[in-house]
Each structure stands twice: as C-alpha cells, then as structure tokens.
C-alpha cells in the first residue's frame, strides 16, 4: 500500500510573532519552525497503517528549503521517502493554490491513501486535504480520530462537535484529514536517524506560480483587537500578582 502524508512546517507554537515591515505577513527571519501539529499525527497514523498493511509511506511537503528539517524528521521516524516541492513564496497562498500544488506533486504516484493534518497552525484554513481530494478525484473524510483498516474495508471514526462521533466506511483510494491526539507519536530512534540519511528526498517545482489564479489575498496582518480590558497584575512579580489577584477575586469580582 502506498500512503502519502502531506506535511507542513509552521512557526513554533511559542514563537513571539512580529508583523513584517510591509504589514502583510509576520517577520520570519527571527522565528524557529516545527512540524504542524496535526500533520505529525497524520505521519504517525501512516506509519501504523504501513506496519499493519505493508507498503511505503511517502512525505509530500510544500515549503522553502528550511522545511527539509520536517522532512528529515519524518524520514527518521520511519517514512520511506519524500517529495519536497520547493518554493519560498507560498506562505500566504490561499488553500486552493496550496492544494493544487500538492495534488499535482503526487498525482502521478497514484497513492492508495493520502493523510493530512486537519488544519495548519499558521494560516488555519483547514481545507488543503479536502481540496487535494477533490482535485485527485478521491473520496475524503475529515477530522478523523480513529482508523480501522483491519479488513478489506476502510472504516474511519470522525469527530463531530460537542463529543459526538460517527463511523464512515470509505471507498478507496481515499484521503483522510487527521485530528491531533489520534495516537501517541513515536520518537525517532538513533537507528532511524542514521537510516534517514540514505532515504530519497526528491525536489520538485510547484505546478503553478505563487499568486496564480489566487482568489483571496491577505491585505494586512495585525495583533487582534482586545475584546476585554485585561487588568494585568503583579508587574512581573509572581508573588505580588498572586496577592493582588486573590484580593480582586474576593472584593472586586466577588467570586471566591
């Protein structure tokens, strides 16, 4: 079975973001990057499926050269090879453009399954997987929290809202978007890291230029407007802050 997993590199969760000079994106120069959280779970699920069903796991990633660290990490954890669509200018691209590039990068490979994280932690459109499925003519299921492929049939458990779930039986090949927490993510072993050095990373060009046929443009990026006037307490002194807070919770908010 040939499983493709779509992975993205995003700024670290704890990164302090600054708006770039032109006001249209964040300053990337001083950021560190990591794998998009749910994509890490998509990789883990791909590896588990491969262990049960045999075959190979192939990573597909769109991003600049720095995204190689995500690819190499995935190879160290057990992916077999990777396709890296190298582009510096897709950070702000809309979901259709990103999906188009990824779909064209894997189309010729005829995957049996494509897995992706359910959304990115940077742009957060939450659409790439679904649009890739449409462009490749595959059925899809989103927000998948369990995969049962023990028989010939692929069954997936989808998360609905407010604690509800639903199983779907899918025709294959299919595309699934994976929810964070579907399983515990493995660590790369030293052996895996050594083995990864010999694995293939094929570089490819994006099928379309950034901005081509774009239907949504980010005009301005800025810190969100405050919804509430927050009283900041303690001024950096934890003990003082705690004392002020206890007093305010009792006498001002009257909740304790």
């Amino acid at each position: 079975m040939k499983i493709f997993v779509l992975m993205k590199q995003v700024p670290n969760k704890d990164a302090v973001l600054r708006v770039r000079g032109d006001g249209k994106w964040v300053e990337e120069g001083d950021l560190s990057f990591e794998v998009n959280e749910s994509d890490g779970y998509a990789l883990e699920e791909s590896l588990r499926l491969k262990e049960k069903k045999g075959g190979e796991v192939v990573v597909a990633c769109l991003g600049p050269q720095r995204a190689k660290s995500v690819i190499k990490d995935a190879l160290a954890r057990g992916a077999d090879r990777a396709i890296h669509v190298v582009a510096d200018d897709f950070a702000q691209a809309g979901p259709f453009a990103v999906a188009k590039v990824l779909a064209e990068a894997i189309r010729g490979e005829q995957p049996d399954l494509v897995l992706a994280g359910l959304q990115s932690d940077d742009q957060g459109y939450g659409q790439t997987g679904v649009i890739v499925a449409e462009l490749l003519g595959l059925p899809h299921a989103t927000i998948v929290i369990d995969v049962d492929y023990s028989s010939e049939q692929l069954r997936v458990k989808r998360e609905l809202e407010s604690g509800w779930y639903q199983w779907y039986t899918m025709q294959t090949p299919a595309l699934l978007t994976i929810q964070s927490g579907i399983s515990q993510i493995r660590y790369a072993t030293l052996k895996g890291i050594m083995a990864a050095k010999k694995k293939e990373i094929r570089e490819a060009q994006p099928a379309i230029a950034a901005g081509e046929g774009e239907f949504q443009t980010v005009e301005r990026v800025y810190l969100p407007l405050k919804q509430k006037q927050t009283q900041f307490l303690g001024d950096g002194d934890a003990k003082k802050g705690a004392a002020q807070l206890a007093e305010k919770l009792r006498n001002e908010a009257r909740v304790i």
Partner: protein
Amino acid sequence: MSNGILVFVEHRQGVINKVSFEAVAAAQQLGASLGQEVTAVVLGADAALANEVTGFKLAGVVSAENPKLADYTPDAYADAFEKVVRAREPQYVIFPHTYLVRDFAPKLAARFGKGLVSDCVRMKAEGGAVTFTRRLFQGKMDADVVASGGGAVFATFQSGAYRGDQAERGGAAAAVESVAVEVGEVRMQPEAPFQEVKAAVDLTKTDVIIAIGRGIKSQENIALAQKLAELLGGDIAASRPICDAGWLPIDRQIGSSGQTVAPKLYIALGISGAIQHLVGMKNAGTIVAVNKDAEAPIFDIADYGIVGDLFEVVPALTEEIQKLKG
C-alpha cells in the same frame, strides 16, 4: 452577472444547528451593506426543515432535495450545493464554520476553482468591496483578507462572530422553492452518530474551573492546579493537548471538540488560548489567565492576567486564597 447572497442552513438528524442563525445574521448584514437579497439553502431528502427558516427576513428558501441527502455525506452535499450555486450564480455564499461545513464546503468551492475564506470573525463592506477578517497563528494575529476574481465568494464565519438572536425576522413567511437536485455516486457510507460513554464529569454545572494547558509541562505538575481547584471547590479541566497526551481524560477537555462551559470563575493556567479553546469558555463570568507569554491570545478575553511562571504564581495564589479563607 452574479446576484444575491446564499446562506447555508445546517441541520443534523432533523434539528437545525443554531449556529446557522448566526450565519443568517451575517448574510443579512452583508446583504444590507451591498443592497442584495439573501436566500437560505437547506439540503435534505424533503422540504420539512425548510419551513423552519421561513420566519427569517429572506428573499426565499431553496430546499434542494434528493433521497441521498437524508444522511450527511460530503459527496452528496457538495453535488447538491454545486447545483444550487450554478443555478443561482450568487455573489456570496455564507456558511457557519462548523465541522460539517469544514467537511464539504472546501470540496464545493474547489469545483469553482477556489477555496473558502474560512473561519472569519468579522467583515466590513465599504463601497461594494468586502474585507473579511480571520484569525491566523492560532489566534495570535488577525488578517484582513480580500476575495477577488470572478464568481461566487465562499466564506465561513466562526461560531460567536455574529449573534443568532439578531437574525432579522420577516413579516410574511419567505417562500420555499423545492428543487430536486441530481446527486452522483456517494463514496462513503455513514453509520449512526454516537456519544462516547457519558462524560463522568459535567463541567457545565460547576462554578469554578481551573484549566491547564501546555504550560503545565508534565502530568505530575497537575497536582498544583488540583490543589487550587480543591481549595476553591472547583473542577479541573484542560485544553486539548493535555487530553491528547493522556494526562487528563477527554471529558475534562474544554473547547470546540470538548465541553462548552460558562462558570462564574475560569482560571486558565499555561493556556495560550487557541480559537478552539476560547469558543468553549469565553462566556465565563470572570476569566483569569496566567501565562509566560504576554502576547498569548488568552489575555484578549481575560479580566485579570498575570504574565509570569505558573509554577511561581499558582503556589503563591493558593497560599493567598488560603489566607483569605482563614
């Protein structure tokens, strides 16, 4: 020439999802700004549910019908909605940003060669041009997005962005137009939806919630928050990563995929405040946030904030409250 605004009204097992009324309010506001009519779209096996939205001020209700629409599937919904969009050539199609919409609407938009302007928190229409605002980086930044190119613009609005009770009611009932739509092959077979074993704790009933996030760093440290919770007679809860890691059971999770709560007091410890968490707790009476990062989005909705190390703040706070309680 495109005309009008379509708004998607979602239902599950014969019950309309109330978030749809927020989408109706958003569409009406857009319609008023642009001088365009708003038409609701309901998909189903029959017209039964369409009659439940005729009370709103709408130009009409399109009930797109096919037996294959009885149970939700993305294939059937995308096919049916595509027919409606092609027939009516709207300028805007507005959706609530629900899990169901996230499942089929990108597929629909892709058939028109575009994506959705998804998860918007507000919009502004000036001189016929519409600017949508959406959250980036898990709520750390806002972005103004302009849609361009021909054809319909597909946009989804986050729960709470508009108020459902502000959706305008109309005088006379809006006319329902029943349309039989063609639906192609459906390649996925749904089973009945279900809830996991009933949640052991019902956090919606508790007055005080102490919630922990990534900042708690390890499972052992949860004892710190537990102690504060016991002192305040409250319950412990968490953001998603904590439950994903298995440090607390999933019935303690607050947010879009967990419980939605509105306690008198909500103390968020080491929670950055991703949108998915905020929607589950933003209606709490008093919100306290303790976080190392002064820019964390949780502070946008907090009444009281302490920027600092929770491992210093929480023991000190516990001690202070103990003193107050004598």
